[in-house]
């Protein structure tokens, strides 16, 4: 594992302008291939933290560095995001949505004329197969189940092959079996593509079983999960996936 962190947050205040900060003194480092879980009650700032790291919200103070550089520098294709409601383009096919992951690697001509290269098409086909949706490639995503839609979002991230993947509650209220499948796919991305993953999960027990580290948001601070909570979580093997 490389020692150079992909993401470094230093003494950051996170929140919205003209409002009191949601999180203060945030310090966090994530390295390639690492899966870091974030837990905390609703409304405490988990999604805002993810959106700040994605460059969609500016930190109120402090630094958010990607590979040592400020987020205002180009990170084209290096950060992937799976939002809470997945951010799929509705009424478009599975293939279309997965292919969107290849856009950062397309040149001007390919984008303007919608002519993806052979490599992009092949990467899309492989990702769709990897998530087990090869027979749904031409199906509209709005006709898929919640679990299948999550797989589409993960396939899109696989094609994008980002260095940092941000997943906001992407396990949602899935049943244990489907959640295991999704966790397995995230593990594959982390292990094979050496992608660092920052994942928000409302379920601390589940998060502890598949994340390398779990941090919790409490009283405007980001702190490691306590010993007792960790032990309680590790006694429940059902979410271990393919670890």
């Amino acid at each position, binding site marked *: 594992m490389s020692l150079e962190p992909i993401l470094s947050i230093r003494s950051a205040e996170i929140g919205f302008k003209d409002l009191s900060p949601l999180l203060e003194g945030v310090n966090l480092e994530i390295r390639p291939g690492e899966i870091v879980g974030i837990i905390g009650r609703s409304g405490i700032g988990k999604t805002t933290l993810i959106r700040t790291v*994605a460059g969609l919200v500016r930190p109120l103070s402090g630094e958010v560095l990607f590979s040592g550089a400020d987020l205002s520098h180009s990170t084209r294709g290096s950060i992937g995001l799976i939002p*809470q409601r997945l951010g*799929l383009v509705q009424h478009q096919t599975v293939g279309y949505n997965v292919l*969107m992951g290849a*856009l*950062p690697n397309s040149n001007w001509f390919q984008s303007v004329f919608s002519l993806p290269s052979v490599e992009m098409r092949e990467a899309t086909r492989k990702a769709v197969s990897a998530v087990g949706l090869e027979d749904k490639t031409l199906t509209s995503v*709005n006709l898929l189940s919640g679990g299948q839609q999550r797989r589409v979002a993960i396939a899109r991230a696989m094609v994008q092959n980002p260095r940092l993947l941000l997943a906001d509650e992407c396990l949602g209220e899935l049943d244990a079996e489907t959640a295991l499948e999704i966790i397995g796919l995230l593990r594959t991305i982390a292990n094979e593509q050496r992608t660092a993953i920052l994942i928000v999960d409302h379920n601390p027990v589940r998060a502890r079983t598949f994340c390398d580290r779990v941090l919790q948001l409490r009283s405007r601070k980001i702190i490691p999960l306590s010993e007792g909570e960790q032990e309680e979580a590790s006694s429940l093997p059902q979410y271990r996936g393919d670890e």
Partner: protein
Amino acid sequence: MSDTPRFVQFVVRRPILRTAIILAIFAVLAIFHLEVNLSRLGDAASNLVVIAGEAWPPDFSILTKRASWAYPPCELQTDWMCSPAVLGMTQTLEIAFLATIFGMAISLPLAVAAATNLSPPLLAQVVRQVLAALRVLPSLIWALIFVILVGIGPLAGVLAMTMYTVGYLGKLQYEALEGVSREPLEVARAMGLPRWQVARFFAIPEAANSLISQMLFMFEYNVRHGSVVGLVGAGGIGWYMQYYLEPFKLYDRVLALIIVMYLVVIVIDQISLRVRSQFIEEHEQIRRPKWRGAFVPWAESSDD
């Protein structure tokens, strides 16, 4: 309040009655200011009787006889194909079609620039003002301007209808684009994509159903208004109506043209309504939007 007359108290306590009285006062003031002479309504009734007598029965020779005075001249050999009704209605449909296509091609990029979720706020405000300025003038005034600029004929009609289409459709489109879900756009921004790719691959496909439906609605609108712009010389069936009205006052032929136009507009409205219904979200099994489906509805295939 005890000294206030009971009638005033009665009015003050009833907001609807209060509003109605204020509106009535303004209406009476406007009638006096405009010097509206209501006795003229009596003249209108007698004029209507005269015109109705001259217009009935409608003269449907406009569907069979060649219009040798047509502009642009008709070179076809068959007489009915060069009749005023066929030429006028064909021109009106062509003007509406071209104005919708050109209007769509111009308005969509402007709508992207005007959508606050896709463009910088300053650019969005500037483009919104441009679109608002285009909507200030109705298509008839645009037609008058273009008849002066490029002369009488369908070109003036196409340009006039295009200008109005850009203003009107642009507003509908930027509102549809602003209504798309925030999350796909955030996925694109997190990827580091430039604004035009966010719009091209995420926002426009997400709003495609609304955009297609609006385009078809605009075509309907342009067919109806395409007949009006002809009255000032901008081509279409309105130009042929104007020819019969002044100086010949052939009301029976004008009535026949109005009937033909009415029937064609009804058919177009029904076709458009059926096609648009495929793109309006009434149930989950809505079709995936395909632009070709807007032009060739039977080419649409199911997603299942």
